[in-house]
């Protein structure tokens, strides 16, 4: 490893074949696993104890490298049910320990092989706590993760840094377009249960706009009796309304809502004006885009919210839900809100906005992930609330 200027940190023990390079020039070496190669991404941390498979397959993690704060990652291996999308979207993985052989009755594959199969490099033996505190104090840096089985000797840090700094990061990036499906498709899979229970057959039609949708959202909708059609992020208002939805769902997704909003806000505003009674429910990026469409700004947070323990207060009920979260951008609701729009939820960690609703219309959205996966199921009822609105609307018709 060659570089000019500052020292590389921690080139301690042998078998160093992976490198985590931060935009400030900090170079941290470790033991690589997963795929080989070199990836750029914004470095974030996630504090969930369980659910690494769901996290890595959450499309909202596109262009991010995830530091897992939980020390023992990979314990339960990988199984076919815990996928949140068609593949791994995170750019890379940072862990305290190398992955162990899995032990769980559902495990079908080990973590290492799976990452390799999904072309995702990882680095272990990292002091993830100090790294996390650094992200907390200084914000999410752009980072490069390199895993080279032959070692790091040929890496020129200066060049790598140049490449890293040339990358723009998440701000201004329309990543939803990258991760969204290309063609519309139908969804019918229901929720995972360790035992089977009777569920309804579909009686309502929901169109879900895929900005990077997590499968558990679709499973929830299907579970509650919805026929779900997933359409690409770029679908326009005509295309969506032509499908005659009983309700519209705006999914989670990666990147800067302002960038994706350039086309999505337009679409949404048209739908809301052409079909004012259509129930709309948004999650995460979908929430931000709804907010922007209603005239609220978004901003980038220093290190975002990524975890499964975030308390969210619902103002109307006074109830607190422990929620799963994954976002780097947020709605600016401190200023005067547009007429008829109000903030419905707030984070009890930092007071930031967590929900939005339009007065007298069945339109609402949340910043957190009620579909959980991973994380607590406390806010599951939002799906029922949405389907309830859909059913009421049909009755009124």
């Amino acid at each position, binding site marked *: 490893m060659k570089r000019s200027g500052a020292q590389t940190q921690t080139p*301690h023990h042998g078998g160093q074949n992976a490198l985590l390079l931060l935009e400030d020039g900090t170079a*941290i070496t470790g033991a690589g696993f997963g795929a080989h190669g070199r990836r750029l991404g914004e470095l974030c941390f996630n504090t969930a104890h369980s659910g690494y498979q769901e996290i890595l397959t959450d499309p909202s993690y596109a262009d991010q490298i995830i530091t897992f*704060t939980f020390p*023992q990652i990979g314990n339960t291996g990988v199984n076919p049910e815990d996928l949140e999308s068609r593949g791994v979207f995170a750019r890379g993985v940072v862990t305290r320990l190398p992955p162990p052989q899995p032990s769980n009755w559902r495990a079908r594959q080990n973590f290492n092989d799976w990452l390799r199969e999904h072309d995702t490099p990882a680095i272990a033996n990292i002091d993830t*706590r100090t790294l996390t*505190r650094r992200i*907390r104090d200084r914000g999410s840096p752009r980072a490069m993760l390199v895993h080279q089985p032959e070692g790091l000797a040929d890496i020129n840090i200066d060049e790598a840094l140049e490449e890293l700094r040339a990358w723009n990061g998440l701000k201004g990036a329309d990543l939803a377009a990258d991760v969204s499906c290309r063609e519309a498709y139908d969804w019918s899979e229901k929720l995972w249960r360790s035992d089977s229970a009777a569920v309804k057959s579909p009686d309502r039609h929901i169109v879900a706009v895929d900005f990077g949708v997590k499968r558990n959202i679709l499973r929830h909708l299907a579970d509650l009796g919805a026929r779900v059609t997933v359409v690409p992020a770029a679908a326009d208002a005509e295309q969506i309304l032509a499908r005659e939805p009983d309700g519209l769902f705006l999914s989670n997704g990666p990147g800067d809502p302002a960038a994706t909003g350039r086309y999505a806000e337009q679409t949404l505003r048209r739908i809301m004006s052409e079909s004012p009674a259509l129930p709309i429910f948004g999650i995460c990026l979908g929430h931000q885009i709804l907010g922007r469409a209603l005239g609220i700004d978004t901003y980038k947070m220093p290190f975002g919210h990524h975890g499964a323990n975030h308390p969210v207060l619902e103002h109307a009920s006074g109830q*607190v839900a422990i929620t799963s979260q994954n976002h780097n951008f947020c709605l600016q609701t401190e200023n005067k809100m547009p007429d008829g729009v109000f903030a419905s939820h707030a984070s009890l960690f930092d007071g930031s906005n967590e929900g939005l609703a339009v007065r007298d219309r069945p339109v609402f959205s949340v910043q957190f992930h009620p579909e959980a*996966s991973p994380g607590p199921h406390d806010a599951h009822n939002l799906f029922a609330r949405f389907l309830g609105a859909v059913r009421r609307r049909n009755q009124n018709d």
Partner: protein
Amino acid sequence: MPKRTDIETILVLGAGPIVIGQACEFDYSGVQACRTLKEEGYRVVLINSNPATVMTDPELADATYIEPLTAEIAERVIAREKPDALLPTMGGQTALNLAMRLHRDGHLERRGVELIGARADAIARAEDRELFRQAMSEIGIRSSPARIASGLEEAMAALDEVGLPVILRPSFTLGGRGGGVAYNREEFPAAFQRAREASPIGTVLVEKSVIGWKEYELEVIRDIRDNCIIVCSIENIDPMGIHTGDSVTVAPAMTLTDKEYQQMRDAAIACLRRIGVETGGSNVQFAVNPRDGEMLIIEMNPRVSRSSALASKATGFPIARVATRLAVGYTLDEIRNEVSGTGPASFEPALDWVVVKTPRFDFEKFHGAEALLTSSMKSVGEAMSVGGTFPEALQKAYASLEIGLRGLESPGLPGGGSRQHFEPTRFLGWPVPGRLLFAAEALRRGIRPETITRHSGFDPWHVARLEEIVRAEGEIASEGLPEDAARLRRWKHLGFTDARLAALAGRSEDEVRARRHALGLHPSYRRIDTSAGEFPSETPYLYSAWDAAPLPGADEAEVSDRRKVMILGGGPNRIGQGIEFDYCCVHAVQALRALGIEAIMVNCNPETVSTDYDTADRLYFEPLTAEHVLEIARRESSRGELLGALAQFGGQTPLRIARALEAAGLPVLGTSAEVIDIAEDRDRFHALLKSLNLRQPEGGVARATEEAVREARRVGYPVLLRPSYVLGGRAMRRVENEDELVSWIDSAVEVSGEHPVLIDSYIADAIEVDVDALCDGRRAWVAGAMEHVEEAGVHSGDSASSFPHDSLESSVIDEIHEQSRRIGEALGVVGLFNVQFACRGDEIYVLEVNPRASRTVPFLTKALGLPLARYATRLILGETLDDLGLPARVLPPFHAVKEAIFPFDRFEGADAMLGPEMRSTGEVMGIDRDFASAFWKAQLALGLPLPGGGGAFISVNHADRAEATELAREFASLGFSLLATSGTAGHFESCGLEVEVVPKVYEGRRPHVMDRMLSGDVALVLNTPSGRRARGDSDSIRSLACARGIPCFTTLRAGRALVRAMRAAKTAPLEVCSLQDYFSDGEPAGEKD
């Protein structure tokens, strides 16, 4: 919602004496509860019979009743104090059961006292196993197939229905007491009877066993608005079938996917809702089939528990404090996260560290009891460790246990290191204590991980972690101590202590430390911040971790620039070293803080008040080894001024490492290691007493068997044998003759390693006296002399004692005071010391001196209203006795009796005869106007109401017959009918007493004494020891008495005390009085000199 203003006075119930399954974790929760209620402005009334608790310090409540936790007493307290509400969830099963009793009897309703924290119907649903199962099945949560039974016939039918093996779970018992496992129809009836007897309502759940399944616990908190959080998940490494208190556990759960975990979380919350726990914390236990993930609910506790104490320490989330606030009306979002200082309490802690809890057992003290683990808890304490990874935490946990292990190392097996000698069925197939160590040993001997999992039920993931450690052991042994930093760091990262590395690499611990320091290797200190580093934490609650490669800024200790002192705690509780020492540590901390000196606590016992995040200024949750203490000292002395370490409050634990600390340059404050050595070293101590002209029982030292035989002959039988440097009389034994001596001495030497065995003449018919005193290095001051109720020869921790003295002449007590002072001054003790005397007439013998805080310091502190450990701390920090301004001699404004409680009912087959080896787990204090009433209250506090009449069974040795006759006469006059074995009966008859002869068991005629006890004809047993050989019969009598809750006295003096108490009970009802009222004149009463 804001706090309730419609209630003013709240009654808090403590947990009473420390017993297995209910230890100092309830002092921890009780302290948090009392503090919180006072902060919220409520008037707090407290009842707890355990004087060694911090919660019974008068400043923690407005009215503190050190009184028995019985319905009668509680009613009297309620009548006096007129509380508006009762908080029953902080005092374990004892408090819950008492609250339920008061509720059922209608007292609470009559007096207008509201149960807060848990409603009666919710408690009933959670505690009654049948109601619980019904409730769970209504909400679709499955339990193991089971049926409730109260009679044997019903139970056999239940057995037929659910199938073998079965777990027997008595309703309403604590720590699974009385529960058991039956593997076949033969052993089922006995196991069922045992379980039924243990249940206060006589019902038992006969449950299909899911032995071998994975076991999990979730700590749940719910508020009045139905906000629920899971504070922590705990995974038992030992599978189902072993009580969770006896299992090695890890937090958070390691082998669940998110989907499985969330399903469990949903079920736990649904359980609280259905049961109706409106506010507060509960613990919910689950079993998971490792083959297909099937999940069953096992049970729930609608109160704070041992697990919630563990969860609080593991996460930094103060469950008891939060639960208390919820009980008075707050909601979770209104409560601040006090550890991090950021955000509300309505969140779920995130951990980026791993916590392992290991149980501590004392089976060797219960000869005759089989060392097997079941669903009835047997462990007497626990250690918790925190590490950056699971292997690191696991190795630290074993180093914390103080059972001679330096990490995950061989438990020492017969038959050498070969694979042939290791039978997996024998060591892994049975739930023996330390089975995880056997699993590691199996790996060392080349047994495959799959075999280990098959036999033991340990999850393959846990076995694989053991394998990582064992593989590294091999590398260390072959490579030796690494020369380079990276390699050495790798071993530290895997949790190897210096001592363990030294053993593996064939070096000394000092060499390893020197090498490590030369390579610049030190651990990082990290904060237990509740948030995995997401938010900064203002609380210095720290643990050490060895990262593979720490980044700059890894250390979060943020050492202050103040003057500071470290307090070394007592480590895991064990028999002989328990809550009393933690009490002293907490007082030392309080004294330091009052002096403006930063108090830095080091301890590894999660049950304690000392390890509460706000007890000390700084808290290091670390093993009490020289390595860990010295690294903390190094870090702490990098800024400010570290004055040294306090080693005299944590029992024997800190003293054991005191020399190593001093050798490494860390000053041990107060009494020097040199003085400690004089007190421990036989010859030096003997010389000291000789120079003071004080008498000592004839005695000698032996390092080999022949020498012991010679010494014992010289001293004369019977003799007391004991290894040096032990606490609680471990391995101490009274030996009657040479055969016994020879057969036993080898094992004793083995127990204490290189230390010699002491042989003392046993002074028969003497009265023992315990003295606690303070010394400033030049002048000593005696706090009090406690007279034992039992004769000398019974361990002081097991003997009841009286303060002030009861039968001894004042002149003897004066002389004892004088001798104590001279000893302390001659030794130059700085701080507390304890002297034990034996008195026979005017003869006074010095038995031993302990230059540290003793077990009786809390008792005396409560009796005198003087904080002795705080005074000691001030002396250690340089003040003199004159500065403290203590009166010449102080007496309590009442009579106090200390009584010990024993766990014999959990160790089937163990003899209940008291002897020189301590076996009690805890103590109670009875306070009243005179000895008799105080003794009565002490018995009540033990859960042994005085028998009002019935059969008094008496069987005494020959020498005791004359005195026993007088006692028998008293029993008869109190309305008892006398039963006696033939010898004793003959003597009674010859003295004109009416007595029924009862055959001994071996005499073959029936009904024999055991039959009579089983038929309920015996209300009390007086049984004094005979020669060791003749003891077989009486062993079983005493065991049965313990099992059936029949008061059983094994000394004549205890019998006499009982008679006096029964007389007192006939004359007047019990009165209650709070400590605050006793001491209301502000000064301790009764100046004598």
